[in-house]
């Protein structure tokens, strides 16, 4: 198959998305039809690419002789692209029901669809330049989604999101230029592209730049000093928070970190250096910090957002172990966390959208009224805290296995941090479920008579996600073996 298909799969949603507000619809249904057509076609195409695994690359455009926009599909890209292509249609389905009560949804769906294409662009990027460009674009395309309601706090959230992301990109930019100057090629090659001869005695310079670059990219992955934007961004409509801030954007950050660490700088030069220590300790701090903030938070979505912060650092922690096993664990958690968190967010969204309740102390006794939603919510909570048999346990297991086998004392601390955060996760997730299911002896259910389970458009994705969590938890080895083949030759 010709590599032009890359251009199609990436540009189609961007261009077709840009058209959304312009087309003349007779009614909402037509728009829904159009949007879903675009999304489904795109993801089908993308999945087809992943299935066919074409080897040749597509050079879309050249800035200069070594700055070019080019796409190729490889193992890591496959994982991310597959994840996105599977989750996006479900999320779109969900948002159709959710967005009914929001204003000017054409604009919303326009940027929503465009960010789909851009995220795919990140996934299929062949070299660091392409990835960087789409990374920046993702920031800009998702900004309007956060601003959507245009209320005061939405604007503030949008601003801080923008500042953080662009700032991160600015530091990542340093890494990019460094790779371009000291690397053999800008392309992603497993094991790194740095040219040792050219590097000469500048090893320390390399480490400094790596740390800067790592921090830069992990701003999107909400690592500790740079995590404030994520919970703020919770003001956006739930499909956005769920998909973008649990899957696309933040995962793009984590993905970029993986690319840079394993495919550009190369773990060989970094393992055992102070740089590794620095970044790893940052991730460990974040793991605990995020959970504790989540514990303090009483706003449902913000609590989930903070839990995202800590879970993303699981991934980053896996990356910073800098062994193949670590990358496997990271990939594993990247996929599984996406499922768990999007599920949790959608449950929260269902509650907010159907009852307008935003805070946790308002959820007493909801378990009886919205059984479907809250059973699934509890399942996702248990998955997040890593109950065996659900997917959370698998990824946690692989992360820790990597950490322990790396024989790195700091990694042992990381293991401890993981477990502490698991405990905190148990606390902040299960308290919600307990409230919902056991409101107390003489609780007046008449007070929440209005509460009902949402329609099938919302419940179906939830059920699918829950099923996926159980499935991944019970038989995960096909996935794991796939990951292992991807990273075998690190």
């Amino acid at each position, binding site marked *: 198959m010709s590599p032009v298909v890359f251009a199609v799969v990436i540009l189609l949603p961007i261009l077709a998305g840009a058209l959304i507000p312009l087309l003349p619809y007779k009614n909402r249904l037509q728009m829904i039809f159009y949007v879903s057509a675009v999304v489904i076609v795109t993801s089908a195409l993308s999945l087809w690419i992943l299935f066919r695994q074409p080897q040749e690359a597509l050079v879309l455009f050249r*800035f*200069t002789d070594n*700055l070019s926009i080019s796409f190729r599909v490889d193992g890591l890209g496959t994982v991310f692209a597959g994840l996105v292509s599977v989750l996006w249609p479900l999320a779109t389905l969900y948002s159709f029901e959710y967005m009914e009560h929001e204003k000017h949804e054409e604009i919303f769906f326009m940027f929503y669809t465009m960010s789909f294409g851009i995220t795919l662009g990140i996934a299929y990027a062949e070299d660091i330049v392409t990835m960087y460009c789409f990374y920046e674009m993702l920031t800009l395309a998702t900004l309007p989604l956060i601003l959507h309601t245009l209320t005061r706090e939405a604007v503030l959230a949008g601003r801080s999101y923008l*500042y953080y992301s*662009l700032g991160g990109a*600015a530091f990542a930019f340093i890494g990019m*230029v460094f790779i371009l*100057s000291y690397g053999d090629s800008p392309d992603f090659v497993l094991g790194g592209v740095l040219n040792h001869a050219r590097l000469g005695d500048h090893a320390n310079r390399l480490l400094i730049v790596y740390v800067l670059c790592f921090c830069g990219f992990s701003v999107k992955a909400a690592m500790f000093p740079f995590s404030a934007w994520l919970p703020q961004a919770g003001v956006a409509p739930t499909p956005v928070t769920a998909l973008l801030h649990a899957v696309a954007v933040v995962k793009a950050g984590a993905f970029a970190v993986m690319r840079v660490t394993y495919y550009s700088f190369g773990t060989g030069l970094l393992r055992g250096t102070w740089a590794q220590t620095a970044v790893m300790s940052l991730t460990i701090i974040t793991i605990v910090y995020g959970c504790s903030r989540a514990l303090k938070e009483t706003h449902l979505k913000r609590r989930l957002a903070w839990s995202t912060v800590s879970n993303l650092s699981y991934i980053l922690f896996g990356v910073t172990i800098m062994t193949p096993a670590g990358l496997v664990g990271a990939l594993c958690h990247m996929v599984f966390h996406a499922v768990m968190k999007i599920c949790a967010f959608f449950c929260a969204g269902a509650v907010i959208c159907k009852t307008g309740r935003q805070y946790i102390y308002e959820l007493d006794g909801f378990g009886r009224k919205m059984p479907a939603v809250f059973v699934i919510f509890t399942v996702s909570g248990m998955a997040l805290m890593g109950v065996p048999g659900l997917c959370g346990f698998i990824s946690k297991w692989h992360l820790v296995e990597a950490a322990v086998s790396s024989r790195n004392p700091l990694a042992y601390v990381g293991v401890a941090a993981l477990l502490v955060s698991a405990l905190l996760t148990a606390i902040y997730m299960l308290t919600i479920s307990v409230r919902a299911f056991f409101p107390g002896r003489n609780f007046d259910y008449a007070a929440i008579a209005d509460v009902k389970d949402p329609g099938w458009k919302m419940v179906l994705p939830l059920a699918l996600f829950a099923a996926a969590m159980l499935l991944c938890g019970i038989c995960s080895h096909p996935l794991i073996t796939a990951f292992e083949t991807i990273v075998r030759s690190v």
Partner: protein
Amino acid sequence: MALVQNFPFISIILSLAAGPVSSVLGAKKAKWLNLLVITVIGAMSAAVLAFVVGTGESYVYTMGHFPAPWGNEIRVGVLEALMALFFCVVMLLCMLGGSRERFLELEESKENLYYVLVNLLLSSLLALIYTNDLFTAYVFVEINTISACGLIMIKQNGRTIEAATRYMIMSLLGSGLFLLGICFLYDLTGHLLMSNIQEQVRAIKAAGTYHLPLLVCVCLMSVGLAIKSALYPFHAWLPDAYGYSTLSSAAILSSLVSKGYVFLLIKIFFRVIGFGIIDDSKVIDVLFAFGIAGMIMGSVDAIREDDVRRMIAYSSVAQIGYIYVGLGLGTTTGVIASLYHILSHAATKALLFVAVSGLTDASGDSTDFFDLTGAGYRNRLAGVAFTVGSFSMVGIPLFAGFISKYLFARAAIWSDSKMLVTLVALAVSTILNAVYFMKTVIRIYTPEHPAVLKKKKFRAVTVSDQPAKSAAMVCFIILNLILGLSSEPIVHLLERGMNMFA
């Protein structure tokens, strides 16, 4: 000698002559004459560029009958031709974009004088670019200053006059130092023609004598030109001058005038003193430090600013900082980055000024940050233009700013001592740029409450209301995209130019 080779000289003379002529014409005619002159000169410069690229080497054009050591010379290479062409394009667009403001803000009788000044300015800029004679350079620096001052004060309200005065004083200080530097150099070498001076300087260097005086010359000239091009600590005059003068003046001043001085400085470094000597001297590190400080402080001031035009003015302090950083890296790649930034910043900053005026038109001519709320909907083209400009400033890929940022970083990567400082400063100033530019972008796309609009009598502006300005904006956007997307040929031209230069 080919006809084309006369063009540089002709273009200088042409614009010089167009000045007095348009003083006797009416406003309309003067305007058209001015546009015509700029276009013609642009065409000529293009021709010259083509010629020089064709021959592949620079040529010297002797004026009058005196041979080298005494006579006055013009020296034309790829770099000069390219700059001339580009300056003409930008100036043309600025004039287009600002025509409506000129009509509104200038006295009926004064408008034709404006064109006199613009023509003089153009001629002086061309002279600065082309001349091979230091003293001529000085003279035209002064002409440049005077006409620029005129451009500032022609919108005759207190602020502009005050701004003009401050501008005048600062640049007089600058040119004084510059002149002193020239005199010393003349004293040292006995020549005024750059090429001859360079030979002498080499001789002196070889002899190993007069090390200190040479250094003093360099310092004097650098500081002089730095003051005139508003390098960070000497930028006090800039915000008022750019912030309150009429649109086209602001655009031209910010995008061209200061750049002319920088170009002259580069010329002196490479053609008069020789970059090797400059690199050895610590002068360059001082410039570097000032540049870094400018990059940061300029943006910080811009963030504090509530008046959008002054904000943009401050941001050009930061941009000048970039240019000097590139210069201060002390490598050819660094200088190329600076040159490219001269181009991209000229395109972007002018665009921003025009776009902002478009937005303010839709906001009751108020440049207050908060009055711009939702202006992006009231004047859509301006909104888009401003967004493009901001993206370019922040250095989003696909826009001009990204390339120059990339060139700076690439240049910095290879320098041992200055790498980290430069890279971090780049990153930080990017963040700061993001802070104030994107803040404004979000602001202009945050819809304003209809009641407020009715109360403030803000009205929407369409393309047809102000064709000239819209055209200018579109052209600027295109220029920006060209610089962003197909930068490679331009960078190659700059490299060739640099090779011819030294």
